[in-house]
């Protein structure tokens, strides 16, 4: 019936796992049938704080991966940085807690119809949804290389089991505590050329996404990025998470990153106008 949020369901689900992984928490939710509609790039909006909380807004988290086993049913994994009051609350929930979720929400990464060379670039916990994406790409015959970056080693999220779908994994940290010293953009152009990359998928801080877009702007490479903007609702009704995005006719629209994103074409986002207002409508 509805064309917006058409796969989304609101459901009370149970926390079935919560463990620390480096600087993050790996939260596992038993969500049942919802997993059938989840695609890499989609996100979940979670009600935080319980009944007497002063927090009135949902929190949006990228869905790291979903699995559907005959033994446990459908489960959804999130990688959460306990940073603000909402994420700290979620990371403090023990197994057995019931939480209110709305999922899946937002756009998903586009999956190529033929086997291509894909480069996945993650910043911080932004790497989480890329491993699920890598599985899907590999199953379509794509060659998948991955670059991960963070300020320090404990903020690199790279689970062992996640690496099986990845041809190569290169890690960068700004302080040199893990992998190479520097940022993921360091030798990006070389890597694209040497590995004959056709498509880049990125997820991480907005500065990283903008930098990748600029670096590849003259190349014949597709760049899909999952943006991160603060949201109040996650379902398209509050209009707070907008980003300036170019239209076909050259004009710019303020699009909601929850409905028209989080996955967007990097070259369409007007990174120079983020936090500003586009030229007036004619």
């Amino acid at each position, binding site marked *: 019936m509805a064309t917006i949020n058409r796969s989304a369901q609101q459901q009370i689900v149970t926390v079935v796992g919560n463990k620390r992984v480096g600087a993050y928490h790996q939260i596992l939710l038993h969500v049942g049938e919802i997993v059938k509609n989840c695609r890499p790039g989609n996100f979940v909006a979670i009600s935080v704080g319980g009944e007497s909380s002063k927090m009135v807004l949902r929190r949006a988290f990228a869905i790291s991966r979903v699995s559907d086993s005959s033994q446990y049913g459908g489960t959804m994994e999130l990688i959460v940085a306990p940073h603000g009051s909402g994420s700290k609350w979620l990371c403090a929930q023990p197994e057995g807690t019931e939480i209110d979720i709305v999922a899946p929400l937002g756009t998903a990464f586009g999956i190529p119809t033929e086997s291509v060379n894909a480069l996945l670039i993650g910043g911080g916990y932004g790497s989480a949804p890329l491993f699920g994406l890598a599985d899907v790409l590999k199953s379509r015959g794509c060659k998948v290389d991955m670059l991960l970056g963070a300020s320090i080693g404990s903020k690199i999220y790279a689970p062992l089991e996640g690496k099986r779908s990845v041809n190569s994994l290169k890690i960068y940290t700004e302080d040199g505590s893990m992998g190479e010293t520097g940022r993921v953009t360091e030798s990006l152009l070389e890597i694209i050329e040497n590995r004959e990359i056709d498509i880049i998928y990125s997820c991480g801080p907005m500065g990283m996404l903008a930098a990748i877009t600029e670096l590849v702007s003259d190349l014949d490479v597709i760049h899909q990025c999952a943006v991160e903007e603060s949201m*109040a609702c996650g379902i398209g009704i509050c209009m707070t998470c907008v980003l300036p995005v170019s239209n076909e006719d050259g004009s710019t629209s303020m699009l909601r990153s929850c409905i028209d994103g989080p996955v967007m074409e990097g070259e369409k986002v007007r990174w120079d106008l983020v936090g500003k207002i586009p030229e007036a409508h004619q």
Partner: protein
Amino acid sequence: MTLPVDLSTTLGNAWFPTPIFTASGCASSGRELAQFFPLNDIGAVVTKSVMNKPRHGRPTPRMAETPSGMLNSIGLQGPGIDAFLAKDVPWLLEQKARVIVSIAGETVEEYSTLARKLRSVSGISAVEVNISCPNVENRGMVFACDPDASRRVIDGVRKTIGGDLPIIAKLSPDVTDLPAIARGVVEAGADALALINTVLGMVINIDSMRPHLGGKTGGLSGPAIRPVAVRAIYQVHAALPKVPILGMGGVSSGRDALELILAGASGVSVGTASFGNPTALIKIQNELRDLLAARGFTTMQQAVGFAHRDV
């Protein structure tokens, strides 16, 4: 065993099966919520205030969560009235939703232009004239802070739109004498009042040590402002007991909706609660029905303004 409660209500000559509406600006144009419940299960969809031309709104960040509330600084982003009437209204009517179109303008003339474009649209239940959006570049544009400007806007809309379509004037609580503003717009032709718009607020980021919102100031909504709404509705209902009020401000439960009704609201809009819970309207409506029944009311209308009655 309790009897079923008749939840129906009226605003001017418009009838609604339940008093629970969306709040303008908190439901976009309805499509987003339709996945979560049928839009004709609630009283009405009040659409996001639309202006004559398409508008980008204010820069991000547009939102700051605050204790039991949030600040927003959207600035009336929207498609413009022509695109809105061509795409959104027909879709809502197809869903059998009752539609209240909210309009906003920068000048008295823009409101009249919007009213002229609405006049020929069939199927809508009422027009909400939003003269109190706090998120505009110039606070002087907040007509609802100026009794004379408020009157002129409503007068222009009334004269343009003719006599049939109910006009709901949406007012700001950020004024010294709210009943005086309310009386003015009613004399100018408003059939009902929407109380309250958000309360002007600000958050400063202590890391950047600058205002957090792109637009610097924003409108405060959520449970934090509910007592302000209850006060505003109570005051205006006491001054103008015959004028129906569409109450809103921090309603997130049936208990909250009942509180606004007891203060004098004939209808209750739900805004920020939908951000936290897409099915909040249905939950509130069901809870309200139970609370009315438990207090022995057989119709919702019996409870309107009950708090004003002598014991």
